[in-house]
């Protein structure tokens, strides 16, 4: 399911073994398009990079993918993230709007231990909103690598019909541009398997040329050199190398109003954005504006490229400082990750269903920090659906909690404000609780009583200390709880501690984590 290729470092002045090893996991399609080579060259400035290409339509072979690399950068293969988190790697995911925007929120919630390099402003905002550590990077073509447009007296279009079934196709171009073009070149190979219909070339009021293959890069460049209007072929882009190259040339880019187009194009200033169903775009009657758009497009790329080059050291530092993922050795975890990844390969909806179904696995991966010891005690052959329920009370907790008596959330824990506080954990299935483990402390020593539903599960009040300590509460007889009711815990202490610290808030006891063992 995968193949690997050693990329020869471009800047290989240092011996390879002085740099940390980085595995770059890329989509097999990019072996042909070389879309991420520019990134690999940047990574090679700080890491010894090995690239492995993965075909997402084939079963994942974890044993062959995971090697001894310290860092793993995943390029557009987001679904592999939990595999490398579970392996304890330093995981960085390069996200693209076209590939990642459709992922459910639970995907990010599960994979918070990874860092994200985002090429889309929109996706960067989404990753941040879901509690992930994300860095926004904005790619810009080197304007020196392309020939600028000089002749704007007539309008000459270029259109690659990549996805004719999407609606961005020759009939749409004909409708949108009418008789404004003096020449149109159409590149015809389609990504969606459509067979090119020559009849689509008819009906234009200008000469139309077409190509199905460029033998050399220079052949493509020659066609682009002759055009000054670029019609972007897709609704949305990951980075958008082609339209950014067109902007670098000073071509007037006409693109659908979605990321990343609308993250680089300020409508009618340095390009033109259209919505589905657009009837026409009038350029011919405002050629002064068209010339300004051309100049501004070039200006955008000239300025942006400088910032892009300057951002490389920060990008390398962002990768270098990624913490290694921490994962418990937990029965069923590996099998559940395999099931979640397999579900991704079946489509978006099965993937979301799997993320919801294996909520404990998701939770365990998202809130790893307090479960160093409990997990080792899990029975070796526990069925996959009998994983314990883990709740992390600090920031980053992704499990929806309802409860009362708690103060604002803190980085690693949550304080109760008075003598009693409660919380209800939602359940996805009926469970039998066999024990509960807490990490808790109080402002000063006191006695804690814990109730699960109406049943007191502390056989005698437990002493809470001033520092966090693990409190294990085994149940003599399993307590059944239904998915409809959830698990309601009530924690109470025998007295409210008198304030004796500098903190003026009303505080009594704090809980870091809660682990519910089920049988």
């Amino acid at each position, binding site marked *: 399911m995968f193949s690997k290729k050693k990329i020869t470092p471009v800047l290989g002045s240092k011996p390879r073994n002085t740099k940390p090893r980085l595995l770059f996991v890329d989509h097999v399609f990019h072996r042909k398009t070389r879309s991420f080579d520019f990134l690999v060259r940047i990574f090679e400035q700080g890491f010894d990079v090995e690239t492995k290409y993965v075909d997402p339509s084939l079963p994942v072979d974890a044993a062959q993918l995971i090697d001894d690399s310290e860092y793993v950068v995943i390029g557009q293969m987001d679904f592999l993230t939990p595999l490398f988190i579970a392996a304890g790697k330093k995981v960085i995911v390069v996200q693209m709007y076209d590939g990642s925007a459709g992922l459910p929120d639970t995907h990010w919630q599960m994979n918070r231990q990874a860092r994200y390099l985002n090429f889309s402003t929109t996706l960067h*905002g989404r990753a941040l909103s879901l509690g992930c550590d994300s860095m926004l990077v904005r790619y810009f073509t080197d304007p020196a690598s392309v020939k600028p447009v000089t002749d704007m007296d007539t309008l000459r279009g270029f259109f690659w019909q990549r996805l004719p079934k999407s609606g961005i196709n020759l009939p749409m171009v004909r409708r949108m541009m009418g008789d404004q073009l003096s020449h149109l070149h159409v590149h015809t190979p389609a990504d969606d398997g459509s067979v090119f219909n020559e009849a689509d070339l008819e009906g234009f009021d200008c000469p139309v040329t077409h190509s199905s293959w460029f033998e050399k890069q220079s052949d493509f460049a020659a066609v682009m050199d002759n055009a000054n209007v670029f019609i972007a072929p897709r609704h949305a882009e990951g980075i958008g190398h082609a339209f950014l190259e067109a902007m670098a040339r000073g071509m007037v880019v006409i693109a659908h109003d979605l990321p990343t187009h609308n993250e680089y194009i300020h409508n009618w*200033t340095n390009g033109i954005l259209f919505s589905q169903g657009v009837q026409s775009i009038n350029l011919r009657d405002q050629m002064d504006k068209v010339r300004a758009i051309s100049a501004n497009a070039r200006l955008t790329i000239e300025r942006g490229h400088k910032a892009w080059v300057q951002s490389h050291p920060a990008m390398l530092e962002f990768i270098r400082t990624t913490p290694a993922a921490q994962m418990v050795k937990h029965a069923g975890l590996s099998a559940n990750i395999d099931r979640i990844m397999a579900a991704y390969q079946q489509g978006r909806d099965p993937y979301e269903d799997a993320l919801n179904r294996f909520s404990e696995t998701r939770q365990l991966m998202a809130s790893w920090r307090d479960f160093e010891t409990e997990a080792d005690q899990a029975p070796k052959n526990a069925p996959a659906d009998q994983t314990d329920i883990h709740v992390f009370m600090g920031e980053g907790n992704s499990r929806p909690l309802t409860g009362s008596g708690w103060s604002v959330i803190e980085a690693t824990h949550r304080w109760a404000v008075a003598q009693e506080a409660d919380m209800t954990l939602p359940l996805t299935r009926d469970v039998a609780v066999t024990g509960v483990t807490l990490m808790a402390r109080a402002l000063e020593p006191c006695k804690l009583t814990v109730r699960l539903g109406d049943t007191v599960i502390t056989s005698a009040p437990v002493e809470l200390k001033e520092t966090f300590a693990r409190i294990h509460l085994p149940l003599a007889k399993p307590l059944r709880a239904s998915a409809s009711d959830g698990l309601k815990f009530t924690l109470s202490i025998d007295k409210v501690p*008198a304030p004796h610290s500098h903190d003026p808030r009303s505080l009594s006891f704090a809980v870091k984590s809660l682990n519910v063992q089920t049988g």
Partner: protein
Amino acid sequence: MARVFIIDPVCAMEYGHSLNALKYFADLASHHFDEVHMVASQHLPRPADGSDDGVIRFFDFHYDYVLKIDRAPAPLELMHVPGQRLSPEAAATVEFSRFMTAYDIGPEDTLLYPSIDHYSALSLANVVGGLHPHQCPALLVRMIAVMEMTALNMTNPDAFTVVIDRLKGLLNVGLPLSICAETPTFGNVLRQRLGQPVHIVPYFAPGIDPLDIPQDGPITFLSGGSARPDKGFFRLKPIIEGVLTRLDPSQVRFIIQGPPDATFAAHTDYMRWLYSLPNAEILPGQVPYTEIVRSFRDSHVALMPYAQDVYANRGSAMLMEALMFGRLAICQAGTGFADQARLYNAGATCGTEDDFADAIVMFAQKSPEMIREQAALARRYYLEDVDRSCRAWIQAEAA
């Protein structure tokens, strides 16, 4: 021996303006007093290199509800009354009494607050209010219309009124209290409320040298600092749209500091719009000081469309830093700092977004050299004013 204590209990972070102000006033006071002591919050981090910065760390911090700081463990002696929960005012009063005792403060001493906060003002009034004038230290209180108005469970106007009433009480019994305001506008407010003249001492950003002004490229406008509504972050869109109807993007450039990660997601659409501008550089929400300096170096004019109501009396550190770096500013009219900008001829003041766009267009058509000359003059006026007003205040009281 004449001692002066420069006090700021809210100075709890090594960055920001409080520590700079503490050091600046300490330096100035050293010309008039035998002994100068700086007193800050006990939570003020110590220098990373282990050196002694000469700051006494004493007071607790009572503003957790508006400002998040890294708290140091509290020394036992500052833990107020064991077993009893105190209000912020009561706690601040206990601390201030202990401070007076610990340093044996007497009538020969001077207490100078570079920017007094609400609970310090109340604790000061509670403790010295009971003294006879000849027992009381000289009190120099500077007010900047920020932390005086910040109190738990009280609106800003009410909190300010409480402070004014307490200070008035001290004046009425003849205690040696001298008040100064950061801006002329706020000075007027204080004069009316207290019924006596006040000094004016502007904010000062010491140790900043003017930067060379960029000679190449278009005139560049800097919107720096926190990307908050009250700092006009969301007025940038109509302002820039207005500019782009009058100027080509190649004729003007913007450097804009974006929001921190915590609030970025809430403004993704707005950020996408800003990022798509062909003539804007967007900075991250948190930048190191070197990057702040770089952003001033690459710009010509600071853009400050701040909320008029919030800044009606307030000065602005951004304006003063811009002046010190040798840059002009376009300021929101009706703010405390707009008067200062006018006084120093430091740029332009505007009311609406359209006015801001017009002012940007006007400055964009000037040469960098014209801007440099005007900024250099403004800087000189500002420095002279600060020096004169500061000395006048301290000298008058020290004499």
